């Protein structure tokens, strides 16, 4: 490996951490806390630790994960009070010996750290997050034209296209807590992402959903969503750009 050749030493530290895990029991409908002590290295993540606990200490611990590399968005959970991806958070970097792990707030629990993402995905779907063209024949049948896009046009929405639907922002949002039907940061960011795409012509269709009692207007720019997003999506910015569009009557810049 080139880095080794260059004289860089990869230092491996070991440490034992206490994991306090908040678990939901679907049989009783109650929460309880379990504590585990587990040794990890500074190169391992909270997800690695949880899986180690699962294989060596408590096989009943329920965790959801898939890619283990911050791409699928399955493993978001509240770690030390902040929603984050378990597979991108290293115990050594948290700075505490006791690490609390809880399921995402604002979502219904299924078991232990696994939450029901249905309402989150329903809200995502409700903003029509796909390319909408006025002429469906040209879009789906003729297939003979390219939809050209310049670098500048790409930048208009690229930031918001990185979303992996992990639900961290949704779980952090105070307004989702207050209003159960509020679409939430992720869905509204998706609405902006597609409406700001120069190939898309569906802004008018999305208006019905985003310009409603449960749409963009709940946002007060506390920006908690943007602060916790592991992908740097900045949903709060998208929501406020949507508000500006609605107030001034000018569709998103594309």
């Amino acid at each position, binding site marked *: 490996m080139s880095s080794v050749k260059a004289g860089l030493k990869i230092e491996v530290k070991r440490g034992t951490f206490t994991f306090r895990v908040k678990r939901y029991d679907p049989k009783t409908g109650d929460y309880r806390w379990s504590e585990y002590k587990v040794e990890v290295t500074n190169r391992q993540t909270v997800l690695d630790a949880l899986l180690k606990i699962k294989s060596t200490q408590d096989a009943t611990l329920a965790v959801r994960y898939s890619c283990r590399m911050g791409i699928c968005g399955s493993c978001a959970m509240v770690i030390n009070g902040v929603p984050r991806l378990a597979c991108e958070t290293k115990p050594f970097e948290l700075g505490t010996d006791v690490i609390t792990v809880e399921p995402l707030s604002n979502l219904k629990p299924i078991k232990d750290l696994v939450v029901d993402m249905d309402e989150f995905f329903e809200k995502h779907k409700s903003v029509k997050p796909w390319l909408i063209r006025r002429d469906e024949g040209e879009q789906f049948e003729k297939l003979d034209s390219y939809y050209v896009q310049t670098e500048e046009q790409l930048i208009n929405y690229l930031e918001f296209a990185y979303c992996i639907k992990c639900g961290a922002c949704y779980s952090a949002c105070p307004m989702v807590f207050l*209003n159960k*039907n509020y679409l939430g940061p992720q869905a509204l960011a998706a609405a902006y992402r597609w409406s700001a795409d120069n190939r898309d012509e569906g802004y008018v269709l999305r208006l019905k959903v985003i310009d*409603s*009692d*449960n*749409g963009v*207007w*709940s946002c007060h720019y506390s920006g908690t969503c943007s602060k916790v997003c592991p992908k740097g999506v900045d949903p709060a910015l998208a929501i406020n750009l949507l508000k500006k569009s609605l*107030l001034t009557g000018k569709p998103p810049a594309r």
Partner: protein
Amino acid sequence: MGMVAKSTLMKWHYITGLILVVVLGIHLAFRWPSYEASIQWSGPHGVYEQLLNIGYMAAIFILLYAATYHAMNGLRTLLLELHQGRYWNTAVDVVIIALGIFIVIVGTVALVGALQVI
């Protein structure tokens, strides 16, 4: 209020917000230099003088209407955030509109009457 787009309601919420900064600012500035003196009937800063000041009274009229809109729309938004349902939504709209009209009528009657007598 299904027939009015939420963005229209909110646009006026923002516009009345801007207006309120001015007229509510005037309303508060008239407490200067002493709150106590500003709520006495007579005296150089008293209520009687305030009623005679046409500019101030114009601001108070605008304040009444802008504040009522801003408060009622805000209250409606909050009530719909706390709970939603078919009957609840209708009830909220009815109560909010009734309350708004009530405030506007009471305030207007009192202010217009005061202006006429003085």
